[in-house]
């Protein structure tokens, strides 16, 4: 040790001379989270903890499984959906035919906010950022000819997650598929909607209650379904740093577990079905370290804070998406390269599934050609680079291990601050988390303005005449067609059955019963999403954001 320190001091003198002759490019080097970077990392920087950590063992820093991608590759799961259920169904079947291994459903904004396509606020939004689903009838079309026991399906749905999952279960019934065979995930993460993504409906308290209802129902009836995907992705997109992404995600996760435990659930009954969703941003090594640190932190939180005993309760399993906010509208083909490097960080960081963004997404929804390149990017990483052939290939790197430890320390500091304030909901209600994210977003933009941060093609290496790629256009007629379909449905169904089912939901909500069974009955009776959420809006009220800038 003494010897190593002496050698390093000596080396440092030589470095100072070299710097005097060749000044460095920047005054200071740091990661996106502001972690200062040394010129070089050595054995002296290794955190003392564990020199012989192995994957698939506590605290899982190196991975949640022993053999990781040598057994099965990550799930290649492209988020897709637009226009009508019919068109989205065709895109899914295309993606599956191209070697994609799981589905990921994007819903349009009215669906995500629990409004039907004929609601005044839905104008212009129907089918735009995802598929429009008004009732079980649409869901039946969305999954037609896709056997639900053969695919795993992720649904990006939060405030009305209980309704969309109920629809999925009803489709499974019609296909004759046992619920126990269903695999997939609902996002169901309301807390990040208040700080980053904006598709909230109800206030936090009833929202958390519905989430707990879903945990309880699925633990019994849909045992292989991931009941939540606790998401740092959107928090990062909104401007958070890597450290903030992990800290705020884990703070939200802690709140979900606390709420469920307080409602009387046993932690090991639901914790194995909790999953996570992170962003793969551009600082390659910081991202790899972030994924490793997040796994370790979660394992420790679950075992120490919540006393979880089942090994599966301790595993932070996560989906990753490359960073949409890093895509540029300028020279969009460059985005293919950005996405490839971000995707590599996710694989080196041990993700369970991955979405790679398409090059044209700073301008519109992706075209079919762009989506294919994005999927091929994953396939190239999987089959050509060798990155999937060894578990945690960067483990033991002086730099990566040091960064992992520093991210862990900084996340713990932030979690302590949030605990002091009374937890995630209190920190959201006070605007603390929103302010932290906004400050980081603003700082980043100022760095871009001053060229402290170079964005290739945007503030340097620009070209005068940008070529405009062919973009996907959603037919504006989708909105009208969808409204007609809904009107047709309403004239065909049995009104008494719908009314009865909606009354049962109201009663359940007022009494505080588990809402899953009455919602399922309403869905089966073809009550619309807007009708079901409308009843819940009346009982629970709507969340009013306090928007500060």
């Amino acid at each position: 040790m003494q010897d190593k320190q002496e050698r390093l001091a000596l080396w440092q003198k030589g470095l100072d001379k070299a710097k005097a002759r060749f000044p460095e490019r920047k005054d200071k080097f740091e990661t996106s989270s502001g972690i200062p970077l040394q010129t070089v990392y050595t054995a002296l920087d290794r955190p003392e903890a564990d020199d012989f950590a192995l994957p698939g063992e506590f605290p899982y820093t190196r991975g949640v499984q022993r053999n990781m991608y040598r057994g099965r590759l990550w799930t290649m799961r492209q988020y897709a959906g637009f226009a009508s259920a019919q068109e989205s169904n065709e895109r899914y079947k295309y993606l599956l035919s191209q070697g994609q291994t799981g589905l990921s459903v994007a819903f349009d904004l009215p669906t995500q906010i629990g409004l039907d396509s004929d609601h005044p606020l839905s104008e212009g939004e129907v089918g735009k950022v995802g598929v429009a689903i008004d009732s079980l009838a649409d869901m039946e079309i969305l999954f037609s000819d896709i056997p639900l026991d053969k695919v795993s399906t992720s649904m990006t749905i939060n405030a009305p997650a209980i309704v969309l999952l109920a629809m999925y279960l009803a489709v499974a019934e019609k296909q004759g598929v046992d619920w126990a065979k269903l695999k997939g995930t609902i996002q169901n993460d309301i807390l990040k909607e208040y700080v980053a993504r904006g598709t909230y409906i109800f206030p936090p308290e009833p929202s958390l209650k519905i989430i707990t209802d879903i945990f309880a129902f699925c633990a019994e009836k849909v045992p292989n379904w991931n009941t939540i995907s606790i998401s740092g992705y959107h928090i990062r997109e909104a401007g958070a740093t890597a450290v903030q992404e992990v800290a705020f995600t884990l703070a939200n996760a802690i709140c979900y577990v606390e709420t469920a435990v307080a409602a009387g659930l046993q932690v090991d009954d639901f914790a194995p079905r909790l999953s996570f969703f992170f962003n793969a941003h551009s600082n390659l090594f910081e991202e790899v370290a972030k994924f490793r640190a997040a796994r370790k932190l979660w394992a420790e939180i679950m075992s120490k804070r919540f006393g979880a005993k089942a090994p599966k309760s301790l595993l932070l399993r996560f989906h990753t998406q490359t960073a949409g906010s890093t895509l540029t509208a300028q020279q969009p083909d460059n985005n293919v390269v950005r996405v490839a490097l971000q995707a590599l960080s996710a694989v080196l960081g041990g993700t369970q599934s991955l979405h790679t963004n398409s090059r044209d997404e700073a301008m519109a929804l992706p075209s079919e050609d762009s989506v294919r390149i994005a999927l091929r990017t994953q396939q190239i990483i999987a089959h050509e680079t060798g990155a999937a052939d060894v578990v945690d290939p960067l483990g033991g790197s002086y730099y990566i291990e040091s960064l992992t430890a520093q991210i862990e320390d900084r996340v713990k500091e932030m979690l302590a601050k949030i605990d002091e304030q009374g937890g995630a909901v209190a920190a959201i209600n006070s605007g603390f988390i929103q302010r932290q994210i906004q400050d980081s977003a603003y700082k980043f933009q100022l760095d871009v303005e001053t060229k402290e941060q170079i964005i290739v093609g945007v503030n340097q290496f620009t070209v005068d005449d940008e070529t405009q790629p062919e973009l996907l256009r959603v037919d504006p007629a989708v909105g009208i067609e969808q409204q007609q379909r809904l009107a047709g449905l309403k004239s065909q169904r049995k009104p008494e059955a719908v009314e009865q089912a909606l009354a049962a939901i109201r009663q359940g909500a007022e009494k505080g019963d588990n809402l899953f069974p009455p919602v399922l009955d309403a869905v089966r009776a073809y009550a619309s999403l807007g009708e079901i959420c409308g009843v819940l809006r009346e009982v629970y009220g709507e969340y009013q954001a306090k928007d500060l800038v």
Partner: protein
Amino acid sequence: MAPIRVLMAKPGLDGHDRGAKVVSRALRDAGMEVIYTGLRQSPEQIVQAAIQEDVDIIGLSCLSGAHNSLFPKVVELLKARGAGEIAVFGGGVIPEADIPGLRAAGIEAVFTPGTSLEEIVTFIRERVSGQ
């Protein structure tokens, strides 16, 4: 001279407000008074707020693809309410091909991803003080 008053608004259901908030802060740092509407505003609500707050200019931000229906509606309603002197600009994930149509509908400038804050500040200053 009184500071320029700006209403930053999020029409429609889109929840992506990073851009609207970053621009709001930059305008404030540039000495303007900024009112941010928050999410999920109908064109009617935006126009009402603009008139009530007596702003010089409205910035609309939309990343959901609903800009072609929502942005022109704000301009129409301003005119209908006799507030046609309030200028309107927009930003977000907006394909190049949509910009001429938006300009023709009275959206005086459209700022797409990669725009510098300085460019937006300069546009507003010239537009409002040049009147």
